[in-house]
């Protein structure tokens, strides 16, 4: 199978998965208690008024009609052509198109996720390799201890501690928001503030957005690095024992070349797979990180919408999270084939 056929098949396969997920969320929300109409009026409305609202939102119809109506309204062609993304239906609270709200919140989450992933991989791989090289000695124990503790810290607790140290006591870094509120955010091109400000050529804005990003992404990155340390370490331990590593050493290659050029290249593959699998966990952590740092991303959006039982908004955000995870796992699989020529997609 060629790369293109593989990618297309994978994309097509995500449709049933997403549909399944969406149906589950659709059903869960309507079965469990809570009423978007009552919450909209804050329980002060006349019953007739509430019934009218229910009719407008289509909530008076049987479930399966609501379901098919929702699915058919997911992609409005005109909206898609003019905006470049689907509308995902109308919000039950604000009556705006959910797509617009989601796609303005998404870049914040994407930026946070990207930077955290980079931090987690760098810390995880470097410490994991160092740990395996000093197997069963003090550095190994220290690094493993760090990894285990990193896994056991609630992400928001680490965030709060960072806020306390770097924000309150030292006053070095901002403790919330994507950019200093006195600085105008860069014009939206990618939606990622650090990249947009560079594209704009504005170094000041770049520094401001980078400073705001530092604590949240460090928090999430350190939490995730725990898993990467453990994985890199155990895979390196297995690889370092293999014959080709001994052979490389016997040929007199430098230890650094053997470790990073030979062993790590092989031990990296399972770690890469894990990165794809852990991405869902990263997004879970991102939701909590976003609430800790008042980060206006998709996580904050979904938490806020759930309180209003805004069915359509939550469903839209769920699709978006699902898509995000799928795209990442696809990228990971393609990378996998790149790193390991033995794998044919």
């Amino acid at each position, binding site marked *: 199978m060629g790369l293109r056929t593989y990618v297309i098949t994978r994309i097509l396969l995500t449709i*049933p*998965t997403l549909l*399944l*997920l969406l149906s*589950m*969320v659709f059903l*869960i*929300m309507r079965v*469990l*208690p*809570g009423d978007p109409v009552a919450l909209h009026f804050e329980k002060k409305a006349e019953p007739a008024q509430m019934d009218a609202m229910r009719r407008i939102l289509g909530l008076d119809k049987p479930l399966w009609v609501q379901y098919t109506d929702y699915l058919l309204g997911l992609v409005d062609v005109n909206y898609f052509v003019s905006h470049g993304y689907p509308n995902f239906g109308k919000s039950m609270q604000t009556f705006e198109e959910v797509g617009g709200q989601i796609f303005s919140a998404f870049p914040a989450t994407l930026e946070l996720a990207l930077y955290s992933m980079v931090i987690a991989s760098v810390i995880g791989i470097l410490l994991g390799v160092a740990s395996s090289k000093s197997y*069963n000695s003090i550095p190994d*124990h220290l690094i493993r201890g760090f990894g*285990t*503790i990193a*896994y*056991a*810290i*609630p*992400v*928001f*607790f680490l965030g*709060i*501690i960072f*806020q*306390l140290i770097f924000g*309150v*006591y030292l006053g070095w870094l901002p403790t919330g928001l994507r950019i200093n509120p006195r600085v105008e955010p860069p014009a939206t091109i990618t939606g990622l503030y650090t990249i947009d400000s560079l594209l704009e050529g504005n170094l000041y804005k770049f520094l401001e957005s980078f400073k705001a990003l530092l604590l949240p992404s460090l928090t999430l990155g350190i939490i995730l690095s725990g898993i990467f340390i*453990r994985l890199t370490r*155990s895979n390196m*331990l*297995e690889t370092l*024992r293999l014959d080709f590593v001994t052979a490389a050493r016997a040929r007199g290659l430098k230890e650094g070349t053997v470790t990073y050029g030979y062993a790590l290249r092989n031990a990296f593959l399972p770690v890469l797979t894990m990165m794809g699998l852990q991405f*869902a*966990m990263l*997004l*879970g*952590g991102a*939701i*909590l990180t976003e*609430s*800790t740092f008042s980060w206006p991303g998709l996580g904050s959006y*979904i*938490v806020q919408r*759930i*309180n209003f*039982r805004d069915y359509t908004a*939550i469903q839209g*955000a*769920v699709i978006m*999270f*699902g898509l995000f*995870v*799928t795209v990442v*796992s696809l990228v990971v699989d393609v990378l996998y084939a790149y790193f390991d020529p033995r794998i044919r997609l």
Partner: protein
Amino acid sequence: MKKTKTKLRSILSTLMPGLSSLSKRGPSGWMVLVGIAIVSSIIVMTAIAPWISPYSPILSRVGPIRAAPSLQFPLGTNQLGQDMLSRILCGGSLMLQVSALSVLICFLIGVPIGLFASYAGGMVDSTTSLVIDAVYAFPGLVIAIAIAAMLGPGVINTALSIAVVYIPSYFRIVRSQVLSIKELTYVEAARAVGAKWYTILFRYVFPNVIPSIVVVVTINFADAVLTAAGLTFIGLGVAKNIPDWGWDLTDGRQYLGSGAWWIITFPGIMIVLLALGFTLIGEGLSEMLNPKLQR
């Protein structure tokens, strides 16, 4: 009464040599031991808290407001003038209940589904796997938040919403084990002598799955503790004003600017310790069970 005593003694006598032999199994054995020590001391501390707390954990103004740690209040006081030490001593109760209950729910749902589906094979297995994998690949916290918000506060509700997230881990580990075990010769032999399918499943296959489930259970405990704290942090916790580490950490956060570090630091450390204890047990056990890592 006597019967339970002898029963207890027999359980203890089988456990004790097990514990002491753990220390002979190198670092992974020690990890398990330390983990067990942390978790059991937290459980004991929570159980005897009402008798050893110096002040009432719910009474406000037992001391000055936001007083720094001192001899009279070793861990300081919070924004209501409550004694932090007493709140720390009592605050594990809800978290322990919620995580234990959610682990139980996960176990009771995930393990049987995994056993039946993978043993049955064919369509049953592939459809169940598809559904479970869809949940697994999705950020579980989103689902937990949604369910917790809809169900409202309460120990059982919170436990349920956490359980939904972790059922897939049980299913997947059981499935991967059963798929290989059911092809083994001794299972084939059992089938050949005419054993019923449920006998094979529960008497022959299930016991061999247990070791891997134990690892999942302990890791799941740690995750449940962290998720419970996370739900509380978002405002979907069990209840307000009940002494609870998660709640104290969340509420104390508002006073971060005043520099009152003790209000958030101590509850946070307790959550870390509890999660760490379970993680250590889980990691140690999985290392012992994985001969590849021993050299």
